[in-house]
């Protein structure tokens, strides 16, 4: 994939135990992924306060990605299950407020899935770009 110029502002909240290590591995494995994402490390997706997502959009983020351990693999046993519920309703609520569903994503990326992380970021960037193009019309 050819590296394009950074255009979007995407905030990535990654869990310390899986996705953050996964993102690290993406770099180690020299997988190329878009540079539009800014990564913030959180202890667990269970710590992910929906207020932080709302705040990110308010401060001008084009997209938000929250990524954590696969269900059942959470370092704290159950944090990501709580996040899954919060994500389900928050996505609906933000869509109702006019924040398009294409701007808000969640994924499960484990520490060994460096390739998958690159794929996820590519998908998030494509969808967010898609929204941006359709919105500016």
């Amino acid at each position, binding site marked *: 994939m050819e590296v394009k110029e950074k255009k979007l502002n995407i905030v990535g909240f990654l869990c310390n135990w899986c996705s953050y290590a996964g993102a690290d591995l993406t770099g180690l494995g020299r997988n190329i992924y878009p540079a539009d994402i800014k990564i913030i490390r959180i202890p667990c997706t269970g710590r992910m306060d*929906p*207020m932080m997502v*709302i*705040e990110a959009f*308010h401060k001008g983020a084009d997209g938000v990605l929250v990524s954590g351990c696969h*269900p*059942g693999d959470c370092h704290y046993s*159950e944090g990501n*299950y*709580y996040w*899954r*519920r*919060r*994500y*389900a*309703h*928050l*996505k*609906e*609520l*933000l*869509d*109702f*407020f*006019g*924040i*398009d569903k294409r701007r808000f*994503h*969640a*994924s*499960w990326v484990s520490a060994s899935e460096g390739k998958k992380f690159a794929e*996820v970021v590519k*998908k998030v960037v494509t969808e967010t770009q898609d*929204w941006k193009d359709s*919105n500016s019309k």
Partner: protein
Amino acid sequence: MEKEMQEIAKKLLAEKKVDWVIGYENSFEPGASRPVFMNKPEDAVKLVFNKSCVNNLAVYLPKIKKQKAAVVAKGCDLRSVREIIKEHQILRENVVIIGVACEGVESSKCSTCTENKLDGVDFTVGTVKDLGRKEDMSDIEKFEELSSKEKEAFWNKEFERCIRCYACRNVCPVCYCPDCFANRLMPEYLNKVVNTAENKVFQQIRMQHVFGRCTDCRACEEACPVGIKLSLLTKKMSKDAKKLFNYESGKDTDSRPPLSTFKVDEEGIAEIM
């Protein structure tokens, strides 16, 4: 009906079963009513119940934690009372619920009310009739079909008027946090400046906070001095809670709120990569 209610209140206060009775009294404005707090049996004659008794009196319950109170509750308010008990803001033994058989007050919710049943109250005033009204979600479904741009434009227009008086928060029975995020300075999630963007963020966060606890009682919409259509949001949330988690707030006092519990096997609720 009013006589019956006054008798109950008088008896409760005279026998010192409760410290306070929270109900409605006539306001100085003809045809209007307002909440009243009584601690003397002779005050009980003040109690009234008519079409203007719109307020949700459950909002006062979390504030009288240490004392006992009797509260006059319509079917819709009863859901809020149950929700407050469920979240341990007041103990069930500290509250006496006087359920009123309501046939609708001057509120937008009443035409689609299915909540006038009074299960689990201590006293019932009047007889509960089946009103034969049906829930109507057509406006929500219509709004959901709009494009994001149209939705955003609609809410921008609404929240442009907001003066951030926080009336919606103050009348909300489930907004009982002693330290609200809107007043907090560290971290400052919300700027104190009143503008469309900040107003919208305030309501987004507030709505997210009351998700799963909001009983769609419409107290916020009625309190709003500039008439922002908050019922759209509260209705949407009760719809989501039902659809995603099969949960209806305020139906009982012992189930777990949807966001404080989970099931291991519920892959289908959200699309996660």
